[in-house]
């Protein structure tokens, strides 16, 4: 399973490196969203500083949704996924590989985005380790459930995935936003219960994803 996962992650990351969809499309898109938020809040720095964690996570979720759609579209081309199933490749390995690839891609995006937000919204990044750990957990949570739901909605039109995905991962958004809020406010002790919830959600979604992905491929 783990060998398949590594091979799948390497394949997805190599494809991303060659196509540079993240760099050329997703990253500019999330900055467009950030600028739109700034316009929406009348470019008032004091408001933007206050809502930075929420803006960061809503924007990241949009980016994640695009990355998940892209990761599954790769498998749809030339019926690659059907080929993998026919060859008897372990579906759990496929799933884990995709999760790893998406999480690594999004972590890169988050580094650039958080730096941008720190400058544009005047929000210095404190407790970087806490912010990074929560980002990793949230990315795992969203990527796992996202891949399952992207498999469920494959070939059924683009609007179904966000409709199914965003309500499911809303607890992750809430927890990640809270952890970032306390991290940026330099009160990390308050972030502990939210971090625990984040761990709980991400683990549940990961286990459910591993268990059901084989059935998703069948469907």
């Amino acid at each position, binding site marked *: 399973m783990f060998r398949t996962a590594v091979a799948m992650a390497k394949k997805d990351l190599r494809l991303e490196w060659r196509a540079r969809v993240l760099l050329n499309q997703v990253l500019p898109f999330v900055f467009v969203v950030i600028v739109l938020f700034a316009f929406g809040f009348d470019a008032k720095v004091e408001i933007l500083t206050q809502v930075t964690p929420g803006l960061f996570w809503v924007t990241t979720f949009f980016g994640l949704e695009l990355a998940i759609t892209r990761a599954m579209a790769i498998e749809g081309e030339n019926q690659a996924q059907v080929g993998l199933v026919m060859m008897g490749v372990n579906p759990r390995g496929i799933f884990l590989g995709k999760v790893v690839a998406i999480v690594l891609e999004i972590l890169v995006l988050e580094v650039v985005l958080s730096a941008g937000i720190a400058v544009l919204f005047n929000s210095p990044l404190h407790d970087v380790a806490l912010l990074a750990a929560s980002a990793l957990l949230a990315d795992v949570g969203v990527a796992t*459930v996202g891949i*399952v*739901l992207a*498999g*469920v*909605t494959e070939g*059924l*039109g683009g609007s*179904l995935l966000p*409709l*199914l995905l965003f*309500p*499911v991962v*809303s*607890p992750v958004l809430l927890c990640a936003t809270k952890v970032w809020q306390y991290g940026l406010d330099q009160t990390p002790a308050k972030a502990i219960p939210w971090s625990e*919830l984040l761990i709980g959600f991400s683990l*549940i*979604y990961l286990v*459910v994803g591993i268990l*059901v992905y084989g*059935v*998703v491929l*069948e*469907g």
Partner: protein
Amino acid sequence: MSTNAKLKRGVGVAALVTIALTFWLGLVVTPPAEVMGNLVRMLYIHPPMAWIAYLAYGITTAASLLYLWKRTRRREWDLIAAASAEAGVFFTGLTILTGSIWGRPAWGVWWTWDALLTATAVLFLLYLGYLALRQVPMSETKRGVRSAIAALVAFIDVPIVHESVYWWKTLHQTPSVLNPSMNVEVHGSMAWTLLLGFVAFTLAYVWMVWTRFETSRRQAQLADLEVENAIRERLSAEEVRI
């Protein structure tokens, strides 16, 4: 009329009678509460509706699991899952609506971003997504498998909704009946009316799911028949040509 149809009609009539009785007891017989006054009358319908929403999503999940498991895979499980989810969305909508009507005089607002309310709204959206997925044209097996997975993922949110009252200390009161200590905080005629409310709405749910399931099954049988006829016509046309 078959026994099945008679039984279903009986459930429907019982649901109507018990709902009418709940309204009569709740609006006429029971007294106003000491603190909440007449607002308490919403208690007789709001928690039963919320209970039905949980029950409906539970049934959808159980039926989806049975459909996913190949040994028990039958069209009927998929249809029951869908019928129950439709009823669940209907009762979740009613729960939000009745809660909002209660919230206006109690809290001074129609809606507040309280954790339980928000989580219930999220639940409503989750299952709307499930129903939207079912509306997309695809083969019956594909729809069944994909919907069943979506239902399982969505059901993860149900305990979160219930537990959210305790996780996030909220404006919404803790449940009067389904609380962790199972200490029912309602007594006397009010308790009996509330109990009747639970029975009435459960009967209504059973009737709704039953009726919807039978309609869907007939639709599926009709579609099968149309396909069989089309194949038969095509085969006879081929024979004529030969």
